[in-house]
């Protein structure tokens, strides 16, 4: 049986299923016991699984994420809710030097199976310290897998995959895509038919949301849905856009990207993260280092510029990679 679910509910289902069966899974994070995590991924788990397995922590991210890593080394599979990715600054060492590198530094002797759930992104005027994406800041670290579903089907399947992975996995969700009430009505393209049974979605494969022949638009998280909006608009103008969701930053499906661009010859890379030294450059480089000859026109980036994210609505709206900016970029490529 399958139902239409939001990403948040779909993710919750995966975690619930695994927790029911696997005592090594425990949840940690600020307010998770009473509030169930930023997207309600652990909604009701406090009552269901009790305070031993659903642990509300002090505001001590270095401490509790480091503890999660230690618990993972000792045989648990902790699932940690970090709420906003903006907060990684206070616990980045655990990500950078501990959870990600221990397996390698031990020559494979020590595993660190843990899943870190983090919300990303802006668009709701929460300003410079609560709206960031920082995709590259986590995906640049060797030894961590980084996945980023953008619809309910993937949200459930990729969380099952993460929970069964023996490695440190960072599972990102853009706040605007999760379908939680406080971000407004759910975005239709994030909703999906979700089987009740568990299933896995493998990491490292792009998802082609929509096939097209003229221009490839890659996105991840929220920018996938902005790209889809732009594509629908452009279709009316006779432009056929292929929308490719990267959905897994580590591992990255470089061949999947190449396949699409080889077909269309035109590339717009969207990313709500900052422009420089990030995902957008990596996607373009991936194509160029395979064959720059596929580009009929120079590739274009539509991203957050290299600025702290402004609070005021007209300022933020001007810098987000929204459908209008994406459509304009596509039109320029087609002219």
């Amino acid at each position: 049986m399958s139902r239409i679910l939001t990403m948040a509910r779909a993710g919750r289902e995966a975690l619930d299923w695994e927790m029911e069966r696997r005592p090594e899974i425990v949840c940690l994070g600020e307010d998770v016991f009473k509030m169930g995590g930023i997207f309600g991924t652990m909604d009701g788990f406090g009552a269901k699984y009790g305070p031993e397995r659903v642990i509300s922590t002090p505001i001590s991210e270095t401490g509790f994420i480091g503890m999660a890593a230690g618990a993972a080394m000792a045989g648990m599979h902790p699932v940690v809710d970090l709420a906003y990715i903006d907060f990684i600054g206070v616990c980045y060492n655990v990500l950078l030097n501990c959870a990600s590198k221990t397996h390698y530094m031990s020559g494979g002797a020590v595993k660190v199976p843990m899943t870190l759930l983090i919300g990303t992104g802006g668009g709701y005027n929460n300003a410079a310290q609560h709206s960031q994406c920082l995709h590259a800041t986590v995906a640049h670290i060797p030894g961590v897998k980084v996945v980023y579903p953008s619809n309910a089907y993937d949200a459930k399947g990729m969380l099952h995959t993460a929970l069964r992975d023996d490695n440190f996995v960072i599972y990102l969700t853009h706040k605007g895509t999760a379908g939680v009430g406080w971000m407004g009505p759910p975005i239709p393209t994030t909703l999906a038919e979700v089987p009740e049974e568990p299933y896995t979605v493998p990491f490292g494969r792009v998802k082609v949301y929509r096939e097209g022949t003229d221009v490839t638009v890659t996105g991840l998280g929220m920018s996938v849905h902005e790209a889809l909006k732009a594509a629908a608009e452009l279709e009316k103008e006779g432009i056929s856009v292929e929308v490719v969701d990267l959905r897994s930053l580590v591992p990255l499906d470089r061949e999947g990207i190449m396949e699409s661009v080889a077909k269309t010859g035109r590339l717009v890379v969207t990313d709500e993260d900052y422009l420089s030294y990030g995902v957008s450059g990596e996607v373009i480089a991936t194509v160029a280092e395979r064959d720059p000859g596929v580009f009929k026109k120079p590739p274009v980036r539509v991203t957050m510029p290299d600025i702290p994210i402004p609070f005021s609505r007209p300022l933020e709206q001007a810098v987000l990679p929204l459908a209008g900016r994406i459509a304009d970029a596509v039109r320029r490529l087609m002219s």
Partner: protein
Amino acid sequence: MPLTPELRRGFWRTMCLSRAFDDAMIALYWEGKLPIFQFGAGPLPGELHCSNGAEPVGAGVCAALGPEDMITADHRPHHVAVARGVDLDRMAAELLGRRTGLSQGKGGHMHIYDPAVNFASSGIIAEGMAVAAGMALARRLQKRPGIAVAFIGEGAANQGAFHEVCNMVGLWKLPVVVVVQDNEWAVSTGKRESTAVERNSDRASAYAMAGEWVGTNDPDDIFLAAERAVARARAGEGGTILELRTARLAGHFMGDQQAYIPAQMKQVDPLPLYREKLIRDGVLSAEEADAIAAEAKARIARAVEFAKASPWPEPAEAMAHVFAGEPA
């Protein structure tokens, strides 16, 4: 400074102004967010953390400070900003994202900066602690007067920055007062669920700092304790962890239903209590007290009007101010 009637009337005025500010912002916040709540809607979007209940902290501590002293506040900055004398019109305009705002709309409510009164804030828990200590260090090096006060919550006291900074404050006898605002909650997490000891002020001995605790949420008591802490700092006797029991009457942020708060933990509004006390002590008549409150409301209404009448920033302005010294 003795607790003069004038000073106490000032506390009342400050508390009324702060409450009026928050009440006005709450009203604006709910515009456009009903019937379906969503952060991004209405004239005041984003998260909003109001200070209702914490007014005595702002009023009492800031009255103990001089203009040369420096303040850092956190994600819940309004009561401190109002008490410190941050420009009300420009603060309201900032919350509404207008061009006339303190940061021309770039900061928002968690990022209130007013260098004219040495005020700064940040939305990252405990980030302001080191900044405050650095400001105090600067004044020592510059041989200029000025102590620094970091306002944090009881939840923030479990962040590593608290430890690192308190240790250096103690080590170098920096003129810093760490005001731990214990409103019992960090989002839904009660202090007992997050903190191994009952009072953060007791942690002062781990840093060779002084510790003081005030449990009344009364500006008189808070002022006197703050004055002692400030005097120690000015005298070169080092820093203080000043823990103040206070209240968080309007929830963690707007939209917080607070279902997690048990009935017996319902918090008390300090404003009516202090009003009664001043009347009882003969400092104010009921009419005078209410006139002050009304005046405060009127002042805030003007600030809101100023903000609402202000222009929005131009989209292109988003690109300015990334770096100092570059064309805006």
